[in-house]
């Protein structure tokens, strides 16, 4: 019983989580091998080919199976062949099998080149040892947050001989599925785990081996209910500190030096509604710092940054705990999504809470200012092509981007991908890009290049061992600037419609190739 993924997932990205985002990009400006070395270097493994660190989601599945007495192990993709000779079941997880999630989807649409995550996954599935094992009766079960993509790519479902796709939190269904697979019983083709079948906190197993970059969950679900997000469909569950400590210890024992606290909004950990639980958050951060020199947050919401700081001075208090001789800044992902009050009211009515949606642009700017002052560096997302988007919404987003210019951050525009309550809506495709979208893409690019260069030089990579990575990133940024200027010139000379007829193709077209 083997659990694996391809190299873009099975990597610690040089212990720099942000470099992992390069796996969503196409290999441009350098050979693919170099690109893969930059963003997805190989992991250390033990003598059986088990990685010392592995993706957290795979660790949860491994733990659920081991707890049920099933002999399961995560195996590095380079060490699969010797295990596949005897394996009966192969489980594969991924964040973005076919580069259909954002931001992969827009890098592909803009450049016309398939991102490395999708290339790498297909290479894995086409390996002769997997095909051979499949011919011998290997059963393949696939899951993870991108499981929904297989509903759109049934051609690959056939080609790769996948037996079952599991979409949703799998801990409660996976043992039964694997037992059926091991016994040769019939497997369902597709399983969607609805909110009534998600595990309770007690039913979520504790990981047995270390997770990539020390990432651990502190809670599941999100109370804000944004319509474009699938996480909000599931109930809110907070891990107790004892459970969090068990996982921190697993990672510390494996020799990891840092951790990432994972939540859709770290600042609502233990909250009553959206009212921050200051005591729980301080305890959580002190606990994490007891085991690790540095820590990062996966996500926070901008409203919570503003509210918790203004009411409780929480950001002051947390950064006092976090910053010491090991760490003087923190990175985090945040969602701006739109600068339009009209759209915010429609698609994310609770995103600004406890402030009214009318104040959304102000909430965003105030939160950016607070983060800038506290050396918290956000990687922010915007969504282009939201359902019912109008020109006035894009103008509002452009105005907001102007207000964010002086705050240290990366801002990544993403094409709308139908997920969550909106999962039956239409994709946003390259053909729908208009002049205002281009202006947003352009503003975000120059903003992120400016601050990206600043971070590469001064904050993100410290120490001689990162010099090769730094050099490569600087060369890449120089390449991006050169290309961007060329595209800007072309747009000025020939206009958008002509540029759209250029080399790039739509993702749907490209993914059908």
């Amino acid at each position: 019983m083997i659990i694996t993924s391809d190299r873009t997932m099975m990597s610690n990205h040089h212990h720099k989580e942000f470099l992992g985002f390069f796996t969503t990009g196409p290999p441009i400006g350098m050979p693919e091998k170099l690109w893969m070395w930059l963003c997805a270097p190989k992991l250390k493994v033990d003598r059986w080919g088990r990685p010392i660190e592995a993706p957290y989601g795979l660790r949860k599945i491994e733990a659920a199976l081991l707890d049920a007495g099933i002999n399961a192990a995560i195996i590095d993709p380079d060490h699969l062949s010797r295990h596949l000779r005897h394996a009966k079941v192969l489980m594969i997880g991924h964040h973005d099998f076919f580069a259909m999630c954002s931001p992969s989807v827009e890098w592909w649409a803009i450049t016309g080149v398939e991102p490395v995550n999708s290339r790498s996954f297909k290479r894995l599935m086409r390996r002769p040892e997997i095909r051979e094992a499949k011919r011998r009766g290997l059963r393949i079960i696939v899951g993870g947050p991108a499981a929904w993509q297989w509903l759109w790519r049934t051609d690959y479902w056939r080609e790769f001989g996948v037996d079952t796709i599991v979409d949703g939190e799998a801990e409660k269904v996976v043992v039964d599925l694997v037992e059926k697979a091991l016994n040769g019983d019939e497997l369902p083709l597709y399983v969607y785990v609805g909110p009534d079948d998600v595990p309770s906190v007690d039913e979520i197993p504790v990981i047995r081996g270390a997770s990539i970059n020390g990432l651990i969950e502190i809670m599941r679900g999100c109370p804000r209910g944004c319509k474009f997000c699938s996480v909000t469909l599931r109930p809110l569950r907070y891990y107790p500190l004892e459970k969090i400590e068990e996982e921190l210890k697993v990672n510390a024992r494996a020799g990891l030096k840092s951790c990432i606290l994972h939540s859709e909004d770290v600042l609502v950990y233990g909250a009553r509604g959206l009212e921050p639980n200051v005591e729980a958050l301080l305890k959580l951060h002190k606990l994490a710092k007891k085991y690790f020199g540095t820590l990062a947050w996966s996500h926070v919401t901008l409203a919570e940054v503003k509210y918790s700081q203004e009411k409780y001075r929480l950001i002051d208090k947390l950064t006092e705990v976090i910053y010491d001789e090991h760490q003087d800044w923190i990175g985090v992902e945040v969602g701006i999504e739109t600068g339009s009050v009209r759209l915010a009211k429609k698609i994310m009515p609770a995103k600004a809470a406890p402030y009214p949606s009318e104040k959304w642009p102000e909430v965003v700017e105030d939160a950016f200012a607070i983060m800038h002052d506290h050396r918290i560096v956000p990687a922010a997302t915007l969504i282009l092509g939201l359902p019912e988007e109008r020109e006035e919404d894009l103008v509002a987003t452009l105005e907001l981007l102007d207000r964010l210019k002086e705050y240290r951050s990366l801002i990544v525009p993403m094409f709308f991908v139908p997920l969550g309550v909106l999962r039956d809506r239409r994709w946003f495709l390259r053909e729908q890009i208009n002049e205002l979208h281009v202006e947003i893409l352009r503003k975000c690019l120059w903003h992120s290049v400016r601050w990206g260069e600043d971070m590469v030089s001064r904050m993100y990579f410290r120490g001689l061992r990162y010099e090769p990575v730094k050099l490569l990133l600087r060369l890449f940024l120089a390449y991006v600037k050169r290309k961007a200027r060329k595209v800007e010139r072309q747009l000025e000379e020939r206009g958008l419609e002509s540029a759209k007829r250029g080399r790039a193709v739509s993702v749907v077209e490209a993914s059908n190739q």
Partner: protein
Amino acid sequence: MKEARIRLSESTSPSELTRLISQAPDVRRIVLEVEANDRVRAVERVRDFLLSNISRTIFVYARKPGEGE
């Protein structure tokens, strides 16, 4: 938790599923047996229904037309 088992014959339109399920709002788990000539085709037949579902647990099984009725 209330479960339902539904078989979608080859001649039945997949849109019929939505109608059937709207009549049983308390059903939280559905085992869907879909007739089709190949396994993946069975999922393709009910893809729109699967994409529109967010609240129920669903297991989809493929059935050859007429098999095990």
